[in-house]
């Protein structure tokens, strides 16, 4: 399936229709579905959330774009609803959180592996090791609060061990800002990666901010507070790699192209027939939105969309386990810290970040506490304790 970003029309926006029944479809099965189907649903919810967020920001700054943006945004909001409502009710907020971190690990790793700009690849790997640690902390919470093994959600695709310890991730805001790609020279894939990861991290931040207060356990509330703070840092990092001199219309076109790219990536790898049909339908919808944005670009901005968009899509995002790659990044780069936009050894970390970290961790560290001595074991920590107990009883006998 060859997609042409400059000529394909997709489903005309006036023919993109929903009903309330259509928005609320059969949810996936938490236990039977492949973990990567859940990963795609969570990411695409984030991609749609970003499209709505961008649409509002853009409309507030551009009177002439308000009408076409409002038309597209209505569709995007309904698409986001349909996609997000595919998550089932028996998947608790904490289990969904495990899914969010699996997205952050496997998608970031997949992007980093093929990112053509070495600096942007380094930025992705830097964030990857931090999200990798979050999975471990939340897995400890799930086990110790509810006695549930996080691997029932991640299904063996993703290691559950410490990454760059979250306690060390807290930085001065200046040290979260990175250098941006150059809009004139950056490869299209770099731009799509940046827009994708920014969307995913922003949604993750919003999810933790929404569900943190849902927990009664004070440690869980602290854990969500601490990790949400890192997600805010990640949004700061990832939005800063995007060239801020891109015009509003250029950014709009890139958002639409990125949605096309992401739905296409989902479609070509999805095995769940019902979910696959949704990816296909929404790929056509996004091509319709892109067509409208191209028209606006030509009619209102008097610019040629070809100035901003490639004709062809790059290779799709690979949805697969990146176990060995992540481990190697962990071995090689866990000691890295940020000094402004540069990455340095932890011995050279700026005092401003060290001071901020000391301040925030002054009353204790939720992420260190929740995982104190915790190691992933099939079936959960209690099963490991059972083995030890039985061993002790045998010795005593």
């Amino acid at each position, binding site marked *: 399936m060859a997609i042409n970003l400059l000529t394909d029309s997709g489903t005309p926006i006036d023919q993109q229709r929903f009903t309330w029944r259509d928005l609320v479809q059969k949810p996936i099965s938490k236990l039977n579905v492949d973990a990567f189907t859940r990963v795609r649903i969570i990411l695409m919810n984030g991609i749609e959330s970003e499209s709505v967020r961008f649409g509002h920001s853009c409309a507030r700054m551009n009177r002439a774009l308000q009408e076409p943006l409002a038309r597209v945004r209505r569709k995007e909001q309904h698409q986001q609803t349909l996609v997000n409502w595919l998550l089932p009710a*028996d998947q608790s907020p904490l289990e969904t959180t495990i899914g969010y971190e699996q997205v952050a690990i496997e998608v970031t790793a997949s992007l980093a592996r093929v990112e053509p700009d070495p600096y942007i690849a380094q930025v992705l790997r830097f964030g990857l090791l931090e999200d990798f640690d979050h999975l471990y902390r939340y897995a400890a919470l799930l086990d110790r609060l509810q006695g549930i093994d996080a691997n029932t959600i991640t*299904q063996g695709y993703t290691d559950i061990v410490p990454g760059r310890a979250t306690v060390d991730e807290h930085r001065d805001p200046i040290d979260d800002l990175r250098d941006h790609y150059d809009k004139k020279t950056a490869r299209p894939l770099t731009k799509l990666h940046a827009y994708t990861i920014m969307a995913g991290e922003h949604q993750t931040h919003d999810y933790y901010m929404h569900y943190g207060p849902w927990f009664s356990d004070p440690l869980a509330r602290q854990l969500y507070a601490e990790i949400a703070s890192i997600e805010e840092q990640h949004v700061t990092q990832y939005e800063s790699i995007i060239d801020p001199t891109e015009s509003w219309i250029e950014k709009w076109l890139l958002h639409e192209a990125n949605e096309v790219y992401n739905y296409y990536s989902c479609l070509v790898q999805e095995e769940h027939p019902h979910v696959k049909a949704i990816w296909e339908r929404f790929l056509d919808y996004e091509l319709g939105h892109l067509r409208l944005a191209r028209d606006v670009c030509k009619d209102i901005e008097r610019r040629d969309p070809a100035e901003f968009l490639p004709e062809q899509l790059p290779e799709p995002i690979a949805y697969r386990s990146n*176990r060995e790659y992540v*481990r190697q990044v962990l071995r090689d780069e866990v000691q890295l810290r940020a000094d402004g936009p540069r990455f340095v050894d932890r011995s050279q970390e700026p005092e401003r970040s060290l001071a901020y970290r000391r301040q925030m961790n002054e009353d204790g560290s*939720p992420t260190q506490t929740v*995982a*104190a*001595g915790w190691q992933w074991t*099939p079936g959960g920590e209690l099963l490991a304790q059972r083995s030890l107990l039985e061993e002790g009883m045998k010795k005593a006998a």
Partner: protein
Amino acid sequence: MDSPQTMGMNRSGIDMSPQAARAMIDAVREFPPTSQGGTETLTSYRRTYVAQADPIETVPLPGTVKGAAKAGMQKLMGRHAEVLIDKLGGRLAFERTGTRLYDALIGKFGARTDEATVVPPDQLNQFRAEEASHIGLCWDALRRLGADPTCVTPNADTNAVASIGLMQIIADPRMTIAQSLHAIHIAELADNDGWVHLINLAKEMGQDEMVAQFRKALEEEDRHLASLRQWMEQISLSQAGVE
């Protein structure tokens, strides 16, 4: 009767990919925890919050002089009336939620016929009606004490929180009649003991009229529980193919 346990492929266990499980254990060996301790570390961390926590809410006492002068309340003079009011409020809330749980279950019967044959709909409707009548019983008891039955007492609130999972099960269209009955069973077990507890408390606090009415409610709850146990066993045996 089909068994939901035999359909589809559940991917949540490690036997789905033993190789992946071995790789994960290798990773655990290579990358150890970054902080020492155990679950006691968490308990200790939570302790300051527990020690400094405010009460979740308070028990509403009769808001008017007229209310406080009611006969029922007079009998409670010198005792902690708020304990009985709290428990009555809790019972009232649980009966309301319980009625809604039955409503949700009965609503499934038209569409799901798989296990429905074991459960007589007339009996379910009767149980639902009895749960609903218990709401009025608690409401009137609170009124006789001069208390406000619309107020959410702490016990009512904890019951509401405890019931969230039960409603999530029964309201989910994917949950079968058998799975929904499991949720009703948990509710009825708690309901049954709740009545026993309330009757003992009311008796000790001199509320004889209340006790007589509540005993009748408990008899009905006993029947609910007995029937549920029987239906659930029948369904399990039938699904297992042994009956």
